[in-house]
């Protein structure tokens, strides 16, 4: 298992897409911070200059970060299946095939942490460059915020992991990644909710759809304020995310153990 993780990490750092996605993300961050700086220049001197943590808190930043990370996750998960099919050369010799899933899961955790660290550095540099002020903000709140985003991103990556367990090509996992990053599942669940409402069934599927909570995480708050101004406990969202992680990871392991490698 440890050996597989080593191999996957080696593969991960050798992938161009890990750098390309981060460079594009950094470029967009630079654009956003410069726009923020431009708008602040029209405000009074007393206006609040955002800290690094507050930039991270912005819904658009969380969405963008998620989108790029999900796309990379999909390409990474399929990198040994699509193309040459490297998976065939080692998986037969592994004790259990589901070790591959666990290895990918661990690598995704490391990737998220690495991305957060790199992203914090980039945001700090951008704040220094465009806002003339480098302040992280409340470290405790920032770490808690990143921790919550970590759990949610990981949960959604497990959905991509599950999708990748069924297919040979890269296309479908990337489509799933983009749809999750663009919060498309919420459209579906809202339609289902409308149908349920029409059928006079008092149940909300959207409540259990994780992606739409992403842009609403806030610093130092135990409540999420959603786009319709309703609130939800962060603890509920975290429990939901953990359920996603457990269900989709276990399901991926079962699928991979039972299916043939093609």
């Amino acid at each position, binding site marked *: 298992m*440890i*050996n*597989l993780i*080593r*191999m996957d990490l*080696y*593969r991960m750092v*050798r*992938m*161009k897409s890990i750098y390309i996605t981060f460079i594009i993300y950094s470029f967009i961050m630079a654009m956003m911070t410069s726009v923020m700086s431009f708008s602040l220049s029209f405000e009074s001197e007393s206006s609040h200059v955002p800290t690094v943590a507050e930039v991270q808190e912005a819904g658009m930043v969380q969405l963008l970060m998620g989108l790029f990370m999900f796309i990379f996750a999909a390409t990474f998960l399929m*990198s*040994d299946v699509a*193309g*040459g*099919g*490297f*998976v*065939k*050369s*080692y*998986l*037969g*010799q*592994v*004790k*259990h*095939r589901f070790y591959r899933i666990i290895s990918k899961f661990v690598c995704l955790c490391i990737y998220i942490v690495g991305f957060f660290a790199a992203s914090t550095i980039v945001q700090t540099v951008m704040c220094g460059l465009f806002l003339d002020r480098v302040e992280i903000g409340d470290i405790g709140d920032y770490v808690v915020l990143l921790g919550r985003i970590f759990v949610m991103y990981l949960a959604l990556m497990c959905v991509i992991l599950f999708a990748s367990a069924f297919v040979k090509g890269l296309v479908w996992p990337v489509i799933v990644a983009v749809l999750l990053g663009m919060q498309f599942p919420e459209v579906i669940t809202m339609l289902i909710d409308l149908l349920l409402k029409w059928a006079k069934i008092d149940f909300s599927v959207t409540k259990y759809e994780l992606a739409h909570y992403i842009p609403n995480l806030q610093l130092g708050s135990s409540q999420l304020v959603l786009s319709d101004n309703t609130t939800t406990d962060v603890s509920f969202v975290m429990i939901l995310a953990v359920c996603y992680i457990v269900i989709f990871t276990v399901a991926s392991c079962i699928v991979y153990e*039972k299916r*043939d*490698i093609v």
Partner: protein
Amino acid sequence: MEEYLITTDRLTKQFGKHKAVNEVSMHIRKGSVYGFIGKNGAGKTTFMKIICGLANKTSGSITAFGETDANSANYRKKIGCLIEAPGIFTDMTAFQNVKAKCLAAGVYSKEYVDGLLALVGLADVGKKKAKNFSLGMRQRLGIALALVGDPEMLVLDEPINGLDPQGIVEVREIIHKLATERKITILISSHILDELSRIATDYGIINNGVLIKEMTAEELQNACSESLNITVDDLEAAKRVLGEMGITSYRLIGENTLALSERIDESASINSELVRAGVMVSELSKRGEALEDYYIRLTGGVAND
């Protein structure tokens, strides 16, 4: 008693109603190069995938390295494989590919990777990405990957398919070296029967998922080589006459039929000597077929049944 490295017992793989592998009972001797012959869709790749642990069987059993299915992990790690196209990261170099596999197997050292690349003739490819390799180079890289961890057995699925003559020779030499110098047991499938006949010591012929024949290279040689078949009334007298003529290379293939494998172009004089000695010759015919013909006859026979 033969020492088998792998035996399968009625191994079956079913996709819906179709049996891709149908009750195959195969016997692979330790140290042999087992040529696995069959047309496209015959079930070769599926069978090989099951052996390597890349596909699950529907029924039947495998015994390998003295271990049964229940402990398949113990024998799977001793089997390196190259199934269908070489499984490589095309955006990485040969060294990086082998290093990745070495990390997965827990055997990485630079010297080890260099040694494997030298063995398959890829020591000098430098930083060239695998996507820029020729098919022959990719196949050799695939073999290097299969060799990581020093497996006792290699499963090679069509390793010479699509290669140019030079590539075929290179891969053949590598396989020959592995079999003779490293004593690795090899299960190899190929469409190019003539090429297979140069390296295989044992054969299995599969058709429509059914293993229709297993034989050694010697048995196949006997089955395929040209012979003069003579059916006589007195076998002992015929043997005496042949001995007097200096013919010693023959075998008994029927109750009263001898198959001569020398001086087969002298059928007239042999017939004349036998008759002169009072031996009645009821049939005298020249037989022989190429490996391809033999294979087609076997598979066609099953298909027509």
